[in-house]
C-alpha cells in the first residue's frame, strides 16, 4: 500500500463547471502523476509533478491544470469541464523506498468523473 487516496471517488458535473480532483499521499514521495483512462486508450498521462510547485505536461494536458503546494497533495483542475473529459482519473506516485528508484509507479483508487 503506497498510501495514496483520491477524492472524490465519484463525481457528476455539468458541462462548463470547474472541477478539482485531489490526490493525497502519506509517504513523502517526490513524484506524483495524474492519468486518465478511457476504453481503447490505456492510461494517458495528463500532468506530473517532480516536487512542490514543480510540474510538467503529459500527452493529454489540454483543458487541465495542476497544482502542488505541499508534498502530500497534487490537485487536478478542469477549469471548464467538457463531456470529452468524462473518464476515470488515476493518481500515481513513484515509490523509491522499496525499489530504490523512481521507476515503479503505484496508483490510487481512481476517481470516476461524468460530465453531462
Amino acid at each position, binding site marked *: 500500500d503506497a498510501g495514496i487516496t483520491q477524492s472524490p471517488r465519484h463525481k457528476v458535473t455539468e458541462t462548463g463547471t470547474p472541477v478539482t480532483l485531489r490526490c493525497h499521499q502519506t509517504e513523502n514521495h517526490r*513524484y506524483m*502523476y495524474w*492519468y486518465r483512462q478511457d476504453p*481503447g*486508450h*490505456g*492510461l*494517458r*498521462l495528463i500532468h*506530473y509533478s*517532480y516536487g512542490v510547485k514543480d510540474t510538467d505536461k*503529459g*500527452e493529454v494536458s489540454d483543458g487541465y491544470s495542476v497544482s502542488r503546494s505541499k508534498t502530500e497533495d497534487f490537485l487536478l483542475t478542469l477549469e471548464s469541464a467538457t463531456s470529452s473529459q468524462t473518464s476515470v482519473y*488515476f493518481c500515481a506516485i*513513484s515509490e523509491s523506498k522499496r*525499489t530504490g528508484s*523512481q*521507476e*515503479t*509507479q*503505484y*496508483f*490510487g*483508487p*481512481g476517481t470516476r468523473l461524468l460530465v453531462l
Partner: protein
Amino acid sequence: EDKVVQSPLSLVVHEGDTVTLNCSYEVTNFRSLLWYKQEKKAPTFLFMLTSSGIEKKSGRLSSILDKKELFSILNITATQTGDSAIYLCAVRNQGAQKLVFGQGTRLTINP
C-alpha cells in the same frame, strides 16, 4: 514519439489454459518495461524488466524482455478465474520520469 502496442486486445480462455500476452514498443533510449494488472480498480504492479533474456517470475506469472526485437511477453500458466483482468504494459526511457502505456489486454478466464 514513444509508443507501446499490446496484443491481443482481448482474450477469452478456459480455466487451466496457459496464455501469452504481448507488448511491443518503440522508445528512444529505453530504460525499463513494466507490467501491471488491473481488476476493477487501480492497476497493481507486477514486474519491472530492464535486461534482455532474464525472466521475472511470480507464482504462475512470468515475464521476459527482448531488447533487440523490442518486445516483452507475459505468461500465465494454469489460469484461474481470478486472473481475469486488464493487463497493462508500460515503458520508460532514460532520463524521463514518465511512463507510456499500451492500450491493455483484457483477459477473461471462463470456469
